[in-house]
């Protein structure tokens, strides 16, 4: 009797049934006795101050229980802003603490009523007067204040690395035989999770529990404690299910803190669910970028100089860096002379935040578009050009890449896509009214890992529970926890269940930076192995066990049965006879010295086919192949789904998504799902996903990296490159909407 491993197999989600029946409880679904409903009051100007706040009528409205503003404030404290401690606020400008307005849609009031309808109506009855100043809401207006930040990713804002001493990268670029010099832009984007941010805040005595949309239980716990000025032990964050995060549900946002303080004052649970429009203002977005890129090579196609200069938008309320060059151009290619730089343009908008592959998503658009332009100038196949400049080691960190199989991604992706059949000539394929084109780009995302803990309990009935304060954003965490624990315990997977989404469980790191699997799974594995050791230790000491007296190392556990030689002993019997309710172990796994020796990255190759209507310029993606090197794959089904999701995001970024600011008022004019276009079903073709499935055992005991973010990277460039191939029009500004193909393209800047 042996258990076939589930690791790497396409295992269906263990939480699937709850999700397809509507039984999965998301933050706003949490029932609480005596629940009350809150609604935010938002600023309707982009900058200035409040000169009048008349809430008398609102406070008299039926059902209203409380109304707060800067006049009657809920006291909040700033946190220490330390990622390792989790005290990171989404926005450091705390609401209701003064009359100052820094952006349109800033929270200026908080009303609680018996019903949602009453709270919403009461919010509209508040009369606010403002002293208005012109907000900074465009690149042009921000020009004066645009400057380099103190640091980018703990490095200098401007980094220059040259192999030829005495010459600047600019000079080295100028001396190249073949040059591409172009400016690429990406707009502000919004996460637009289908679940809007929500909190149910419930006090019991001095203990607060928030049912909150969360990708970072421990972070939100630590942050909320500091914001309230109470010990972290008094705060519990619960979020078994989160309806999409992508970065906007990681840090603590202040609607949550306001609900908590209001609940304390009212002595009743408070529920706040943001409206869709509100979710566009003070809960993060991806900054816009302007990226100037220079790529210089010899006629042989070897790149000699690369300059990647980025300006990204930030917020007057909260500085945020979108490190588009630092996370891409510094080390993706084997380039001897590189310069990257970053500037920030502070706008009167809410805080930006991490959004799926922050830095890489816009950065790879510029870099990989420029590579396509260089390939064209050189008349070298785009895949070949990338192989010519393949980085065998991390030239920036001066360390070997731990496990790099990007070459296989290019090869396998090209093979699956049929790249060899592509006619390199632009505007050479037509089907009816549509131009057809194929393009490719590379994908890139670092392997991150932070300390995380997990607890495994093996119960007397032969089932086990694996628990960690980690998250399942739809990533499959519930499922792979069961898989890994079952594997290490020697139990069938259906005997293991997983618990997560509760800060009372053993602490785990953020579900961000694609690091959950690499951080949490080693802890799960370690805890399960500890339990197995304890079990075996019991079995060999158990006088009634057939295994009594054997050496622990001779014993295996498979399918719930201990085996030593020919002797068999069910796990259940051993535990039951021990008198223990369960065998339990909690282990913490953390990165060691490997980070000093290696550079850890995931890689991929994205291949896109598009059709572009010859008359009216609509772009539709018709085929997509994504070949990914993400380390070992634990679950082929959920990992594939995440890559597909990343590609869908890339398609949205390439063709649809754009948050537009009114330069006069600083209002997002696209702040609803009718105007902010995320892809719909009809926009998405079949997406073929390939995994190299090569374990990165330098990185952790399971050889896994992560898959949440890499899927989006390079997709935008692959599509833009395919659009160029289809039409001969190079679009360097996202999204590629029809007008960008109708209006005459900018003068080509390719010099050769």
């Amino acid at each position, binding site marked *: 009797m042996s258990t076939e491993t589930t690791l790497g197999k396409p295992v269906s989600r263990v939480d699937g049934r709850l999700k397809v029946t509507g039984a999965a409880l998301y933050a706003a679904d949490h029932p609480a006795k005596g629940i009350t409903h809150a609604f935010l009051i938002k600023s309707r100007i982009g900058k200035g101050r409040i000169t009048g706040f008349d809430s008398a009528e609102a406070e008299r409205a039926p059902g209203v229980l409380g109304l707060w503003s800067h006049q009657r404030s809920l006291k909040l404290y700033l946190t220490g802003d330390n990622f390792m401690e989790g005290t990171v606020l989404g926005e450091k400008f705390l609401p209701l603490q003064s009359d100052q307005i820094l952006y349109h849609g800033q929270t200026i009031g908080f009303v609680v009523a018996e019903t949602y*309808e009453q709270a919403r*109506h009461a919010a509209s009855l508040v009369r606010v007067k403002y002293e208005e100043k012109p907000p900074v809401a465009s690149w042009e207006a921000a020009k004066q204040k645009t400057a380099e930040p103190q640091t980018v990713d703990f490095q200098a804002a401007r980094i220059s690395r040259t192999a030829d001493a005495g010459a600047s990268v600019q000079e080295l670029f100028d001396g190249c035989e073949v040059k591409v010099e172009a400016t690429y832009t990406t707009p502000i984007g919004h996460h637009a999770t289908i679940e809007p941010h929500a909190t149910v805040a419930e006090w019991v005595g001095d203990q607060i529990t928030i049912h909150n949309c969360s990708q970072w239980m421990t972070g939100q716990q630590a942050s909320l404690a500091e914001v309230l000025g109470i010990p972290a032990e008094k705060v519990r964050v619960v979020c078994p299910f989160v309806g999409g995060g992508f970065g906007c549900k990681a840090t603590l946002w202040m609607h949550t803190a306001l609900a908590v303080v209001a609940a304390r004052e009212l002595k009743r649970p408070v529920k706040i669910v943001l409206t869709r429009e509100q979710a566009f203002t003070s809960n993060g977005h991806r900054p816009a970028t302007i990226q100037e890129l220079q790529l210089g090579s010899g006629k042989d196609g070897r790149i000699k100089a690369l300059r990647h200069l980025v300006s990204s938008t930030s917020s007057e309320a909260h500085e945020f860096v979108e490190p588009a060059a630092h996370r891409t151009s510094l080390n993706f290619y084997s380039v001897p002379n590189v310069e990257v730089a970053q500037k920030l343009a502070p706008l009167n908008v809410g805080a930006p935040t991490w959004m799926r592959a922050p830095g890489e998503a816009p950065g790879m658009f510029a870099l990989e578009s420029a590579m396509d332009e260089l390939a064209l100038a050189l008349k070298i196949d785009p895949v070949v050009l990338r192989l010519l400049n393949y980085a065998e080691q991390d030239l920036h960190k001066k360390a070997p890449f731990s496990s790099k199989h990007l070459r296989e991604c290019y090869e396998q992706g090209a093979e699956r896509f049929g790249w060899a059949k592509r006619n390199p000539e632009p505007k050479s394929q037509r089907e009816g009214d549509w131009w057809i084109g194929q393009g490719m780009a590379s994908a890139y995302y670092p392997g991150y890992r932070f300390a995380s803990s997990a607890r495994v309990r093996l119960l007397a009935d032969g089932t086990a529970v694996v628990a960690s304060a980690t998250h399942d954003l739809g990533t499959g965490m519930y499922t792979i926890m069961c898989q890994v624990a079952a594997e290490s315990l020697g139990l069938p997977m259906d005997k293991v269940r997983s618990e997560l989404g509760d800060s009372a469980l053993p602490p785990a790191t953020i579900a961000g930076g694609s690091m959950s699997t690499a951080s949490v799974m080693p802890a799960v594995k370690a805890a399960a192995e500890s339990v197995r050791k304890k079990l075996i230790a019991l079995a060999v000491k158990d006088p009634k066990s057939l295994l009594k007296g054997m050496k622990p190392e001779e014993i295996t556990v498979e399918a719930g049965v201990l085996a030593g030689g020919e002797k068999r002993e069910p796990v259940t019997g051993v535990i039951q006879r021990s008198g223990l309710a369960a065998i339990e172990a909690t282990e913490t796994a953390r990165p060691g010295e490997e980070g000093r020796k290696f550079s850890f990255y995931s890689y991929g190759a994205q291949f896109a086919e598009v059709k572009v209507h010859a008359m*009216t310029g609509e772009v539709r993606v018709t085929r997509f192949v994504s070949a990914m090197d993400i380390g070992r794959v634990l679950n082929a089904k959920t990992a594939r789904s995440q890559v597909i999701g990343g590609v869908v995001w890339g398609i949205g970024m390439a063709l649809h998504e754009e948050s*537009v600011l*009114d330069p006069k008022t600083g209002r997002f*004019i696209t702040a609803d799902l*009718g105007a902010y276009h995320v892809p*719909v079903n009809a926009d998405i073709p079949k997406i073929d996903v390939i995994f190299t499935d090569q374990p990165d055992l330098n990185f952790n005991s399971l050889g896994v990296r992560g898959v949440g973010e890499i899927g989006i990277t390079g997709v935008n460039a692959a599509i833009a490159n395919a659009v160029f191939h289809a039409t001969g029009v190079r679009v360097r500004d996202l999204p590629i909407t*029809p007008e960008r193909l*109708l209006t005459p393209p900018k003068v080509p800047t390719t010099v050769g």
Partner: protein
Amino acid sequence: MSAPFGYEAVKTEADAIKAAGGTAGAMYLAGGTTLLDLWKLGAMQPTKLIDVNALPYSQVSVASGTARLGAMARMSDAAADKDLATHFPVLTESLLLAASAQIRNMASLGGNLLQRPRSFTYRNPDPTATEADGRTDAIFGVSAKARAPHPSDFAVALTALDASVRLRRAAGERIVRIADFYREPGNEPQRLTTILPGELITGIEVPALPWARHSTYVKIRDRASYQFAIVSVAVALRIENGVVRESRVAAGGVGTRPWRLPLVEAALADKPAEVAGFEEAAAIAGEGAKTHELNAYKIELLKRTVVRACLKAAAIAG
């Protein structure tokens, strides 16, 4: 914003009109897809809703070539009607290319005509709020206060077909040509139609037009589905021996009201029913447009969409 309102479900036209007449701020509720959307935003502030869904206006029929469409028929029911699709494919296509399956199941044809544009002027409680230039802005019929394009696809098709709207109020019934039903909003952005207070749309009539069998609706949008038109064109062509004899052309996404293109219709007359002829006629489509940097592309896109729609209609015709 989102204040309480009264509610009364009525069964007869007379009761509906009576109920509406008695209360200031009363509004008719049909599918609710516009009304409730805007009520939540504070942009519509009914004091009372008169639910007219039970009124017997749900027929969709084509008799002697004339289509009679009840105001309470749902978009999906009209879109599924085979006779309508045969006689007026442009109508069917305009319905199927609009919104989503769920919304088409809810939205009534009468309500469809009364949609509000998708812009801040129409989607916020403050009637004085100003708007920024945007890429979706209309290029025809714009004023300082009204610049958003009319959102209905169906109304564009009806405009091409010279349909009429049947209206009922206490004083009696009137039938208004769709050209007179919509107005350029000018300085009164909220007045998009000539409907009178308390007046109820009871039906739509589309006069017989045998060659409307050769009609089509082309809608341009960034997404492949579920998006308002950037530009759309409804076309019907009468072609004889490869030459256009008569045509109907109306456009969406470009006007503050559904926008008929009479100059293009005139220019199409006696043109060969092929690309060159269509391009020549479409060249005049942008006449009178007022644009800014962000929506200037709509002139070119409109011309090309006219050509595309004509080619498609000609293919049906041939």
